[in-house]
């Protein structure tokens, strides 16, 4: 059974058809990357999965349970977690306090400090624990937010452009984090532009275009697909509809 499944998911804003009949299935334990040119509908799909938007039609299943009507926090409590594109950390609080707020309901006060320490090490943020989150570097903010997301021990981690604005070294370190998390059993769905990162972590890649699933497969298969290269270069003619959901 897939851990996450969207069935014929549609979202329209007024006349705009932003998400068009998307069927997506994530197997437990995989790292799945979502790519596509700007405006392909990646962010909207994320928001639909998280429950920030209600779909116009279609349904979303999490571990076999229909969560289409659930509020965001209810989805989180079932084992999802998200890192936003723009870090949503609490800037006026310290790094440690950020993690405390994320974790306080999941640990006894005694165990909390130790767990936060472990997490800070994992995030390469141990030296920064006392700093105000707003004063961190961009990459560190991204890590802190990843840390808040994974502190919930989710079964499914959603990452929206986790490496945006990072140096190549930071990007690589982030990729290693994702691989370690995955090795511990976490399923990951990431929206990402950085193809080096995708190559580093992805088991499977889905290409979105004009709100539809355009292609899907291993990273090598996708890179080899000429039509994918075409849409990134803006060559795909509008009438060139994909034949089916699976390339």
């Amino acid at each position, binding site marked *: 059974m897939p851990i996450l499944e969207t069935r014929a998911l549609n979202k329209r*804003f*007024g*006349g*705009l058809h932003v998400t068009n009949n998307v069927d997506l299935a994530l197997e437990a334990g995989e790292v799945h990357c979502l790519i596509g040119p700007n405006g392909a509908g990646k962010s909207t799909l994320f928001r639909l999965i998280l429950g920030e938007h209600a779909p116009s039609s279609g349904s979303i299943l999490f571990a076999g349970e229909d969560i289409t009507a659930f509020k965001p926090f209810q989805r989180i409590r079932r084992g999802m977690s998200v890192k936003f594109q723009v870090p949503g950390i609490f800037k006026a609080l310290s790094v440690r306090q950020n993690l405390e707020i994320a974790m306080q309901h999941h640990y006894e006060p005694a165990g909390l400090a130790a767990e936060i320490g472990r997490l800070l090490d994992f995030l390469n943020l141990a030296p920064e624990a006392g700093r105000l989150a707003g004063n961190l570097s961009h990459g560190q903010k991204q890590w802190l937010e990843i840390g808040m997301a994974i502190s919930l021990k989710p079964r499914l981690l959603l990452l929206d452009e986790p490496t945006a604005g990072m140096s190549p070294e930071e990007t690589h370190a982030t990729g290693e984090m994702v691989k370690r998390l995955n090795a511990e059993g976490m399923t990951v769905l990431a929206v990402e532009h950085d193809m080096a990162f995708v190559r580093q972590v992805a088991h499977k890649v889905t290409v979105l275009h004009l709100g539809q699933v355009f292609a899907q497969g291993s990273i090598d298969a996708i890179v080899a697909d000429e039509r994918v290269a075409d849409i990134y270069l803006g060559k795909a003619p509008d009438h060139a509809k994909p034949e089916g959901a699976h390339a």
Partner: protein
Amino acid sequence: MDVGTLAFSALYQFGDAFAFLVLSACGLAVIFGMMGVINLAHGEFIMCGAYVTVSATHAGLPLPLSIALGALVSGLVGVLVERVVIRHLYTRPLDTIVATWGLSLIATQGTLILLGSTLAGVGTPFGSFQVGGYSYSVYRLVLFGAAVAVLVGLYVLFNATRFGVMARATIQVPHMAAALGVDTRLVYSLTFALGAGLAGLAGGLYAPTMTLVPTMGTTFIMEAFVTVVVGGADVFLGTAPAAAVLAVVKATMTSLYGQLFGQIGLLLAVIIVIRVLPRGISGFLLRERA
């Protein structure tokens, strides 16, 4: 009582309520709706316009010119207030509540100290006319006409002039507008002045029909906020339909159950509209259009 008389009287009452709501609200719609500044001194800009209008009329100026002067002076005071106070508060809209409340205290009591507790009125021009068994004030029709003219003027200003387009761009994405070479500080200044000037215009227009005291602005405040909140952020698309809807509510409730329920009806309408349309009528319309 024939149907024509009844229909006219209902229309007249609606138009009267509509004009009051539009004129009270349009200045606030610019300042609160567009700039997000909660201007509790809105009523004092209205008072300023009224006082200038009446003083100029007493000094011998014809009423229409006096009203224009009232609007102008309010606008200039608006520029001053924006430069000295409001400019520093754009990033903290909630603090504008405290600052503008302070301004309103200064204006009300300052006027009392400088000009005394009351000003003699100028009388309402144009007399009355008769329809069926009722006589009506001609000037109320002028007010209705002025309200419509203000709405049309605002529509043209914000959709067809360079300033309007620039203002909307600045207020939606300030850094983008700045990057495109717009003097955003000037735009904010002018927008605030426009709002203050419109408030002054409302004061000038209503000055002949009202008691002139330093606290006269408070009688406009509730209607103004209610209309703007129901309308939402867009000056034209918000204020006009909101005033229309609220005028129906107010005129109907007042005529059936009296003034108290007219007022309570307004306040309940705002609560219900916000619950159903959290971004006001214009938010709803714009989203439908998109």
